[in-house]
């Protein structure tokens, strides 16, 4: 594995982790709002 390849590998992993975290955060807010509305 070349340093350039590893750098690109890590960059993609980080970008995917950030997007996943954002989606999970948004889902937490949505599920909380649904729970409040349906109570």
């Amino acid at each position, binding site marked *: 594995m070349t340093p350039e390849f590893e750098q690109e*590998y890590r960059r993609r992993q980080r970008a995917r982790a950030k997007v996943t975290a954002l989606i999970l955060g948004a889902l937490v807010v949505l599920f909380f709002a649904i729970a409040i509305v349906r109570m």
Partner: protein
Amino acid sequence: MSPALPAEWRDFLALTKPRVMTLVVFTALCGLLAAPVHINPVLGFTAILCTAVGAGASGALNMWYEADLDAHMKRTKGRPLPAGRMDRPSALQFGVALGVGSVLVMGLAVNLLAAAILAASILFYVLVYTVWLKRRTPQNIVIGGAAGAFPPLIGWAAATGRIDLLPVLLFLLIFLWTPPHFWALSLFVRTDYAAAGVPMLPVVAGIKTTRRHVLLYTLPMAAAAVAPWPLGLVGMIYGLTASLLTAWFVLLAVRVALSRETDQAQMKPERALFKFSILYLFVLFGALVVDRMILA
């Protein structure tokens, strides 16, 4: 040997066919807003989100199954799978996760009827259209049209918990609109479909037959588009908009039917009908919402 690079998140987004999703979101939203029942904004947002994610799941599973086909067409060979930017199992897992997640959330947060229609639309698009019929019959677009016609029905069912005549007519409208819309496109990109081996109507039955079919499907589509007005389901705003736009649609379809052009680059009536058909659906559904809100 180095491991393969993980796919970019943008490629996962591309799998959901975002451009198709805009029409799905719009028609589902119109179905929801045209319903005679008020829905809590949070639940309404959830219903539209689930519909959009369900459509994304259909798109991802379609691209997973058709990766070999996409590689042969100019229009699709840049997609993540044929371009080699993603492996097939990732696309399959992503599509299944979106599909199951969207149906579950719809069922738990909104209602079971909306969840059932959403599940049916995903299964119909993936299994009936993509896997079963697309490569076997030149009528594939007619069948595929049914899958794209579900969103207004889902929106209405999310708001009311039932199915009425108006959303059924909206379903029929999109169902009958799809063949002239796609056949107009397939006429001026038919060499692409022929190269991929997809039995699209212009490839199998020829240009003349396809042009006749465009007009043949436009006529019942026109009836479904205008029908809500004489049936008293909508007011004058929708009625007049639908009458005028549908008349123009029919006129463009007649021009296609009468055209004798065989050079794809010169097929102006087909391009005009394809472009107008997109605008037609957006304006018609927009008019429906305005009309129903004023009526309410």
